[in-house]
């Protein structure tokens, strides 16, 4: 082997050897480029916007130390309907997407995990493959599929499903599927479905099937076995998948922009407009801070389960 040529220690070797470097390097990087920016956003959200600069929060002049905090942006968010409604709409669409992904994804992951062992790697690869294909382009493709004369639009109209959608209030008129809440939800479920399937599959595939055999021996029907054994054992997968779908959906920008049309307000678009169209950076920051507050609980749950699954594997 090559062992002999590697023997001479070098400076870099010495540096890499220490666990300090292994932990310290990514840690420092994340503190500077991930944690610190949030502190700065929080700071700017209470700053006053001046023509080019923000006012400093703490200023010192004429022997007076001044601390100026502007809460106006937050007051505005609580008082203005636009913001309130878009937060509500974002949470609503995120919830609908999560439930939709779970309803489609759970049976999918289940049958995938119970397929013949030799078939499973291929089935898994086929779920992963869309990850390698541009997300932007796949979302864009739905514009064509649901638009006038699109394949899916024509199929839905052919079976009269659009009447159902109209009754459910998901589309404004018969034959109009694109740029509606319906097309938005289809795009979101489509995009996030693999994020639901993969953790579910992981938890269902490693399940001990002897438990089901034991349950059957004790007289449980397959249905009872499924509800009382399989579902509880896949709880970690359900939670991880739901969080992987729900949290990014709350702030989703690209999908509502391409598929949602003008009526569907989502908070990600509001933030984008505050920043790029109104150039109101403190306001955009305040919108972001409130968004973080909304997702902080699901985020904590996600991290807890992520940490637990890492521990469980040891």
């Amino acid at each position, binding site marked *: 082997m090559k062992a002999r040529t590697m023997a001479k220690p070098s400076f870099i070797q010495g540096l890499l050897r220490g666990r300090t470097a292994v932990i310290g*390097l990514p840690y420092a990087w994340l503190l500077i480029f991930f944690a610190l920016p949030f502190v700065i956003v929080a700071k700017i959200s209470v700053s006053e916007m001046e023509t080019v600069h923000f006012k400093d929060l703490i200023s010192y002049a004429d022997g007076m130390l001044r601390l100026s905090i502007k809460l106006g942006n937050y007051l505005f968010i609580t008082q203005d309907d636009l913001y309130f409604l878009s937060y509500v709409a974002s949470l609503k669409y995120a919830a609908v997407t999560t439930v939709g992904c779970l309803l489609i994804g759970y049976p999918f992951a289940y049958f995938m995990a119970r397929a013949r062992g030799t078939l499973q790697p291929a089935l898994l690869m086929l779920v992963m493959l869309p990850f390698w294909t541009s997300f932007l382009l796949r979302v864009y493709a739905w514009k064509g599929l649901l638009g006038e004369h699109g394949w899916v639009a024509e199929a839905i109209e052919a079976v009269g499903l659009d009447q159902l959608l109209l009754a459910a209030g998901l589309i404004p008129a018969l034959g109009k599927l694109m740029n509606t809440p319906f097309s938005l939800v289809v795009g979101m479920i489509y995009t996030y479905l693999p994020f639901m399937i993969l953790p579910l599959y992981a938890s269902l595939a490693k399940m001990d099937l002897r438990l089901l055999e034991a349950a059957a021996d004790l007289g449980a029907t397959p249905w009872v076995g499924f509800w009382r054994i399989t579902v509880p054992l896949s709880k970690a997968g359900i939670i991880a998948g739901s969080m992987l779908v729900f949290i990014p959906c709350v702030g989703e920008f690209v999908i509502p922009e391409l598929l949602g049309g003008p009526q569907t307000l989502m908070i990600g678009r509001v933030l984008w407009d505050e920043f790029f169209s109104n150039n109101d950076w403190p306001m955009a920051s305040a919108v972001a801070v409130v968004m973080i507050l909304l997702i902080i609980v699901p985020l904590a749950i996600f991290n807890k389960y992520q940490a637990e699954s890492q521990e469980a594997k040891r």
Partner: protein
Amino acid sequence: MSSGATIKARRAILGPQATRWFGRGWLGLGYVFLYLPILALIIYSFNDSNIASVWGGFTLKWYGQLLQDREVVTGLWLSMQIAFVTACSSVLLGIFAAFALVKYKRFKGRTLFAGMVNAPLVMPEVIVGLSLLLMLVSMQRALGFPERGMLTIWLGHLLLGLAYATVVIGARLQDLPPQLEEAAMDLGAKPFQVFMLVTLPMIAQSLLSAWLLTFTLSLDDVVLSAFLSGPGATTLPLVIFSRARLGVSPSINAVATVIILVVSVGVILASVLIARQERRRAQEMAAAQRGG
């Protein structure tokens, strides 16, 4: 499932015949759902009609136009450069982060570290983009750099790439039997040698997967790029996005098909290489065990 499972046990797991057919149907429909948009993009890129969703015969004209489209060509070149650098740096930093999380169970602030590594996986990109940009602007005011452009886009992509690379590499590290590393250590190898000669070859496959994944993620990113790009640094997704906002256009279908083709060839090539390498490794292991 063990081969000796009784019929009764099999039924307990799979349910009656009807359930199995239901399962096949569900999987089939699921895959149709996942692949329909990709198929549509490819087919309509050959559509000889200016109205994108009406079929007007076969043509290659959109591909011809693509080569002359300066915006697309320069955008693609910029995106490729950023994606390459992002993938390399994400994997390097990802090895460190995955090691820290998997191998070192106790260190100060581990929970915070794990949280920061995982958060970009789910954190809405508008928040990450906005906060990173505002920090970079503050930094530029204080220090005079960095200008918005390739460098700042790379910083944003690395944040996302690091999270994904750490998950992929960490999963592989967790599955490794610790005995091999321990044996090498007992035989007197220094930690760095153990890493280079034992650990690295065993996780090589995950490094390649992580590299490809972060490369494609970077190549695809819209939101972070929009926040972090400066004038003159327009990546391909930004070009596509601004056109797609206006409506459906056949030229985007052609770009899409080219990207899908290139990425598919890359992924298939990589997985063939990985499969071959795995087989060789398994054979070596078997031979070593027989010999020992």
